C-alpha cells in the first residue's frame, strides 16, 4: 500500500476505491436483476483445471484458485442454472502493465445455453457498466474515443483474423508457439481500439474447456473479448464430455512437463460431476482491466492501490 503523499494522491486513491466499489455493486445488480444467483466457492483448492500456460500459486496442501470454473460447474451439475461469482484469483508469475499475479475475476454460467447467449449477456453488461460508471456508452480512454454501444461490437473468426494479419489459418495446421507469437505481434495490434472486438471459434487444440463446434471439429466454441488489443474475457460453450475433458487435462499436463513445469492433479470430483452438467455457456472476465478502462487509467497501476513492484 502506497501512503498518499498529499491531498491529490489521497483524492486519487479514494476515486479508485469508489469506482471499484461502484463497479462491483453495478455488476451484482446487473446479474441479480437478470435472475442470476451470486455464489462463493473456495479460494484454496486441492486441484485447479490443468492448463499448459497457467501456473497456480501454492497454498497450504493445495493451490490458490486460478479460476472458480470447476467449482461453479459442479453447481451447474447440481442444478443451479444461472450463477455468477466476483472474486479474487491468483496466477503465478504474471506481472506487467496488464497483468498482476492476483486479480479480480467475474465468471458467470448459464445452463441450457452456449457461447452466443453469453455474448449477448456480455454486450448488455458492458453497455450497462459504462452507463453506470461513465454516464454513457461512449467515453474516452487515455484520450481516445471508446464505445461500448452494443451495435458497434465487431466479431471476427480467429481463422479469418489470422489469415488477414498473419497469413495462415491456425485451425488447419496448428502450431502453438507460432500462434501465440503471431497473436501478440500481428493480430492483437491490428484489432480496433475504439470498440469491443470478439475473436471467435478457436482452433480445436486451444479448446481448453470448450466443446468443439458440432459441424466443424477443427474449431471450438470459444471466443475472447478484446478492447484495443487488450484481452478482457474468455467464453465457452462448455465441454460436458468427461472423457474428452480428462484427455485434455492430460494433454495440458504433458505440455506442462515439456515446459519443465510440474503437472497438476486432476479434480476427480469435478470430472465425476461433469456427466450431470447440462449444456452450458460460461465466461471469465478480468475486472481489473475493465476497471482500468472505465477509470481511464493507462495501466493496472492506476486501479490496484496494493500493487507491489
Amino acid at each position, binding site marked *: 500500500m502506497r501512503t498518499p503523499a498529499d491531498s491529490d494522491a489521497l483524492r486519487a486513491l479514494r476515486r479508485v476505491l469508489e469506482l471499484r466499489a461502484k463497479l462491483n455493486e453495478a455488476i451484482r445488480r446487473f446479474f441479480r436483476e437478470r435472475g442470476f444467483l451470486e455464489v462463493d466457492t473456495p479460494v484454496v483448492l486441492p486441484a485447479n483445471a490443468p492448463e499448459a500456460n*497457467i501456473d497456480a500459486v501454492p497454498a497450504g496442501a493445495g493451490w490458490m484458485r486460478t479460476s472458480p470454473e470447476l467449482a461453479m460447474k459442479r453447481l451447474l451439475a447440481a442444478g443451479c442454472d444461472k450463477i455468477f461469482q466476483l472474486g479474487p484469483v491468483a496466477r503465478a508469475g*504474471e506481472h506487467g502493465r496488464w497483468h498482476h499475479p492476483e486479480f479480480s475475476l467475474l465468471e458467470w454460467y448459464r445452463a441450457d445455453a452456449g457461447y452466443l447467449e453469453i455474448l449477448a449477456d456480455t454486450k448488455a453488461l458492458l453497455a450497462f457498466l459504462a452507463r453506470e460508471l461513465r454516464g454513457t456508452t461512449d467515453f474516452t480512454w487515455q484520450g481516445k474515443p471508446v464505445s461500448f454501444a452494443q451495435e458497434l461490437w465487431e466479431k471476427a473468426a480467429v481463422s479469418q483474423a489470422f489469415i488477414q494479419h498473419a497469413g495462415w489459418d491456425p485451425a488447419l495446421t496448428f502450431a502453438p508457439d507460432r500462434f*501465440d*507469437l503471431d497473436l*501478440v505481434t500481428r493480430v492483437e495490434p491490428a484489432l480496433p481500439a475504439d470498440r469491443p472486438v470478439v475473436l471467435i471459434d478457436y482452433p480445436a487444440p486451444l479448446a481448453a474447456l470448450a466443446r468443439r463446434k458440432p459441424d466443424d471439429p477443427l474449431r471450438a466454441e470459444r471466443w475472447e473479448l478484446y478492447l484495443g488489443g487488450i*484481452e478482457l474475457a474468455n467464453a465457452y460453450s462448455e465441454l460436458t464430455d468427461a472423457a474428452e475433458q480428462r484427455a485434455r487435462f492430460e494433454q495440458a499436463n504433458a505440455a506442462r512437463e515439456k*515446459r519443465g513445469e510440474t503437472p497438476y492433479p486432476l479434480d476427480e470430483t469435478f470430472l465425476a460431476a461433469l456427466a450431470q452438467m447440462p449444456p452450458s455457456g460460461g465466461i471469465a472476465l478480468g475486472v481489473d482491466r475493465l476497471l482500468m478502462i472505465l477509470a481511464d487509467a493507462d495501466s493496472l497501476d492506476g486501479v490496484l492501490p496494493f500493487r507491489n513492484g
Partner: protein
Amino acid sequence: MSYTAANLRKGLKIELEGIPYEVTEFEFCKPGKGQAMYKCRIKNMLSGATMEKTFRAVDKIDQPNIESKTMAFSYKEGDKYVFMDNKTYEQVELHEGVLGDQRFFLLEDLECEVLFFNHRAMSVALPAFVIKEIKETEPGARGNTATNVLKPAKIDTGYEVGVPIFINQGDFIRIDTRTGKYVERVKQG
C-alpha cells in the same frame, strides 16, 4: 553464454545474429491461455537503429561480448576520433557517425568509457557533464538572471546551445552530454 527471456529487462545488452542490441523498452505480455512473452524495443548498438522484437519465455538469447575500458580522448583526424589508454598507450578510433552529438562535447584528455564488441571499439560513454567555454554569443544583459529565457551560444566545437541571457562570451558552462543542454554557469578560469 546466453540469457533466457526471463532475464530481459530495460538496459540489458543482448546479441542477435551477430549484432549487439540494448533493450530500451520492455513489456510482459501473455494471452490468458497462451505462453508468456516479452515485447521489447531493442536498439542496435552499432547503428543506433531501433526495432520491435518479441521473445517467448522459452527463447535463449545470446549474451554479447562487450567490454568497457577507460580511455582519454586524444585527437581528431578527419572524421575519426582517437581515444588512448593512458597506461598502455593503446589507441582506438571511432567514426564521427558513431559519436553523433557526443563529438561536440569532447575535450582533450577527457576520460571516457569506450565500449568494445568482440574486442572492436563500438561506442563511447562520456561523463554525464562536461565544462565548455562559450566562444560566441550576444553580450549578456547584466542583472537579467532569468533562466527560462534562452539565447543561442556557440562552444569551441561549433555546437550551438541555448543559454540564459546573462551568459557572456568567455564564460564557462556545464553541459549535460546526454541531452546536450545547458545546466549552469561555472566559475572557472
